[in-house]
């Protein structure tokens, strides 16, 4: 399920062979297939408590799991036979550009670090770091400008949501100050 790991878009767009086992999309198809197995196996321990008619809590998961196995199989066959979906278009997407693996990994690392440190650092500091880090990774050049916006944004959202809307956000290191 980690599609970043493999080939770039440019290479794959070429007129490659119709049959191929080395398509990145195959990982997604196999994920669907594997998930089908997981749904069926994962609910095996759920004992049908109430009903003798086979309509217990496993009934629907088994249907979904079997459907996933079937769909995953067709999907994998389609991918191997050369079928492919169209990458989604969006305003800021350059579909011709090769996949930029590094940026995706950096964005992931920054976000996961944010999730891990949020309670310790508090929303204002962690949020500012998240915004700053992501902006720089995504190509912001004026560091000082970015830092000011990051601090303003995280402070304003904290004040608006905690004081204004009554949402709970962690104060963290600054909890005594603000």
């Amino acid at each position: 399920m980690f599609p970043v790991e493999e080939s770039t878009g440019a290479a794959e767009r070429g007129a490659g062979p119709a049959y191929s086992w080395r398509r990145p999309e195959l990982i997604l198809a196999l994920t669907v297939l594997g998930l089908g197995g997981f749904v069926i196996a994962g609910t095996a321990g759920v004992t049908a408590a109430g009903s003798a008619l086979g309509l217990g809590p496993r009934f629907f998961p088994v249907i979904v799991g079997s459907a996933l196995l079937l769909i995953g199989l067709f999907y994998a066959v389609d991918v191997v036979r050369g079928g492919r979906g169209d990458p989604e278009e969006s305003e800021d997407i350059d579909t011709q550009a090769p996949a930029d693996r590094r940026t995706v990994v950096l964005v992931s690392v920054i976000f996961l670090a944010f999730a891990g440190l949020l309670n310790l650092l508090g929303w204002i500091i962690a949020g500012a770091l998240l915004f700053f880090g992501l902006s720089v990774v995504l190509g912001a050049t004026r560091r000082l400008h970015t830092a000011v916006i990051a601090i303003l944004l995280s402070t304003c959202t904290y004040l608006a949501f905690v004081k204004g809307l009554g949402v709970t956000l962690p104060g963290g290191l600054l909890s005594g100050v603000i």
Partner: protein
Amino acid sequence: MDSFMLLLDGFATALTPVNLVYALIGVTLGTLVGVLPGIGPAMTVALLLPITFSVPPASAFIMFAGIYYGGMYGGSTTSILLNTPGESSSMITALEGNKMAKRGRAAQALATAAIGSFVAGTIATGLLVVAAPLVVDFAISFGPEDYFALAVLAFTAVSSVLSRSVVRGLASLGLGLTVGLIGIDQQTGQARLTLGIPQLLDGIDVVIVAVGLFAVGEVLYVASRLRHSDPEVIPVGRAFLGRSDWSRSWRPWLRGTALGFPFGALPGGGAEIPTFLSYAIEKRLARGVAREEYGKGAIEGVAGPEAANNASAAGTLVPLLTLGLPTSATAAIMLAAFQQYGLQPGPQLFDHNPALVWGMIASLFLGNTMLLVLNLPLAPLWARVLHVPRPYLYAGIMLFAALGVYALNSSWVELIILYVLGLLGFAMRRFGLPVAPAVIGMILGPMAEIQLRRALAIGAGDVTSLVKSPIAAVLLTIALLALFTPLIRKWFARPSRAA
């Protein structure tokens, strides 16, 4: 006439000063977020959902109605003024709208979109007022097997119609159904697929799924292929229409409305098909100047599809409010919003909470009017929004995504779940899996399961009880047709493509 009185009561609810302010906030936020590039209506609604949590239900839905129409409207501004392809429902508007803007007619393109949206939205909301009670009267006799058949129809229609590849649509649906299974089974209290993680016992909140698939998925996808050139935004002044533009626009508005409303109300109909049909019809009907201009920026090609887009947004509310059946990703998130308040849309909602439903419908009329008043003079402001530097935009989307999810339960584990769903959203975009079936499967899956088990329990386990009611039999037949028609077509088309 009964529903007319109820609608008047709804206006009484919606016209209180507090609720007017909520409607205004909703419309403004919806437009503002909807204008931002890369953010479609579904993501707008998902990102703004957490804001409504601290508001009483009636006001929250009034605000929500504003967000819904505002988000729809914002998307068209983006596609007219920004010189890049956008998400599918506003892509048709961009065909002629963007060319009009380039020829210096951006003000007229925006005006015909705004007024057309107003006209279509008002007529279609009126149709909603007429149609909703009729559907409620019809649906009051629905049994569990009928609801199950409806859900199945929604599943197959959304998977096969919205996607060029049926198997990819179904794969997306399956992923959504699986996510919907996670958590405690509502009937027996057994935990399913929780992997021993206590946070998963209550299931994955739909806000996390929607924000993960739409917002985080989009940011990761953009990170992988960010357009590094500066965005080209076409400058625009106050939006207005000249006399000839009025006479060229009003017929396409009405035709677009007539197309959009029924398609919006159908499962799998969505906004894509009616906007495209409207574009094609206006092209065929074009005479004189319009014919010459078509392909170079004809106002008819903006007026029709924009009206169709907005009318379908109102049409979507018919099955959503009367049957609890979402027919688009945006509607699925709206359904989730109802569930957050412990409300289940369906025939009973009109009986039990008439003030809320009719207040919301009345505020759709108000929101539409507010959008018109807001957007004609504010067009230059929205154009400035399009200049937001992209690194800040996407970093900001991530920040608000994290905020919305953390605000739910103050849990960092849910932020990790958000990220995993974001990765899934990224993979789905990258490989062309539509996101809508996943969201609809996740929300409608648990309901389908309950109705299926109920129907089979009533029928003592006899599978044929699922097709005993004629309504269920017809719906399931249509569902099968929706699923297999593209497959059969593809089967016949395959030899020619391989050759």
